[in-house]
């Protein structure tokens, strides 16, 4: 498979400080990089315009879930064979992309999901409060979506074309992570978890989700499920 048929979707919102640093290794890897600028108000758009990437720009901020769905629709329309979700804040290590792609390239599964907990060394690097919260989220996902994973809120994932065509993200904001898992279970897509490392830089920690926001995500997901 040609690497240009592998599309990396990078949703971004006000990430001017790190966006070029994040994108460069992906471009060097020969992938087709799709940056979805979700209505940034800083220099993000000016910075990505200088790079050889596909740029899609939301005229107003809709949220990460909406940006990922936009990127997926665009990538599918451009003939993507595999789609990877990749965070713009520098948390994801591009060296792990190959690990995520392998089970899909070998046609073993439709979806490969990154997990911070499969490698004990990586798991120990997660701040304690974050680790506890993620464990709770895992328990919640098992109860609500009937899908058993070690890391349910990891934004580093890869989809085969078949899976990407079946998944439609309706949750515009952060509840999309739970929604994707719910759809994987509901549409009976085959999946596997792959150990990946998340880099907790100071920048990424400052931009990360707070505990109070996690409660909002939970409410959004439940309301979305039962009142849609």
């Amino acid at each position: 498979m040609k690497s240009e048929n592998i599309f990396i979707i990078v949703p971004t919102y006000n990430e001017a400080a790190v966006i070029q640093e994040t994108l460069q290794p992906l471009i060097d890897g020969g992938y087709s990089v799709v940056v979805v600028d979700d209505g940034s108000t800083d220099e993000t758009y000016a910075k990505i315009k200088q790079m050889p990437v596909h740029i899609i720009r939301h005229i107003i901020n809709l949220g990460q879930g909406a940006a990922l769905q936009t990127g997926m629709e665009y990538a599918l329309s451009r003939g993507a064979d595999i789609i990877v979700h990749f965070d713009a804040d520098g948390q994801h290590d591009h060296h792990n992309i190959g690990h995520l792609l392998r089970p899909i390239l070998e046609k073993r599964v439709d979806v490969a999901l990154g997990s911070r907990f499969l490698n004990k060394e990586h798991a120990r690097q997660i701040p304690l409060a974050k680790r506890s919260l993620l464990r709770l989220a895992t328990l919640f996902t098992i109860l609500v979506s009937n899908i058993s994973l070690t890391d349910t809120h990891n934004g580093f994932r890869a989809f085969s074309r078949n899976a990407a065509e079946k998944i439609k993200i309706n949750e515009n904001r952060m509840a999309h992570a739970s929604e994707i898992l719910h759809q994987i279970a509901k549409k009976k897509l085959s999946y596997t978890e792959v150990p990946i490392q998340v880099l907790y830089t100071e920048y990424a920690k400052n931009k990360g989700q707070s505990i109070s926001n996690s409660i909002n995500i939970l409410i959004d997901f439940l309301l979305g499920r039962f009142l849609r």
Partner: protein
Amino acid sequence: MIIIQGILFILLLTAIAIYFRYFSHQIIGRIIVLAMGCVLFIFILFPPTANYVAWSLGIGRGVDLIFYLAHAFMLIIVGLLYIKLKEQQSILTELIRKIAIEFSRQKTDGK
């Protein structure tokens, strides 16, 4: 007593008219609002009816019955508004997405 009945009557009539004019064009919604309107008209015109119904349901006073019904009604309205808001958000999202993808495609293809 007659004056307050008249005011309530006009308020209720206005509320129903606004609902029919601006909110729902679905037949089920209109039937529910019309049915609730009729019940409230009866309670306004014949206040002891509310007491009688409340007593029959084991609630006690008519005013308590109306209080509970109002709360239930408000919750339903909030739920319906939430769904409506989600629908609008979904339309807006699709619109922004279509514009964004189309614009990007035109730029990439040089059209």
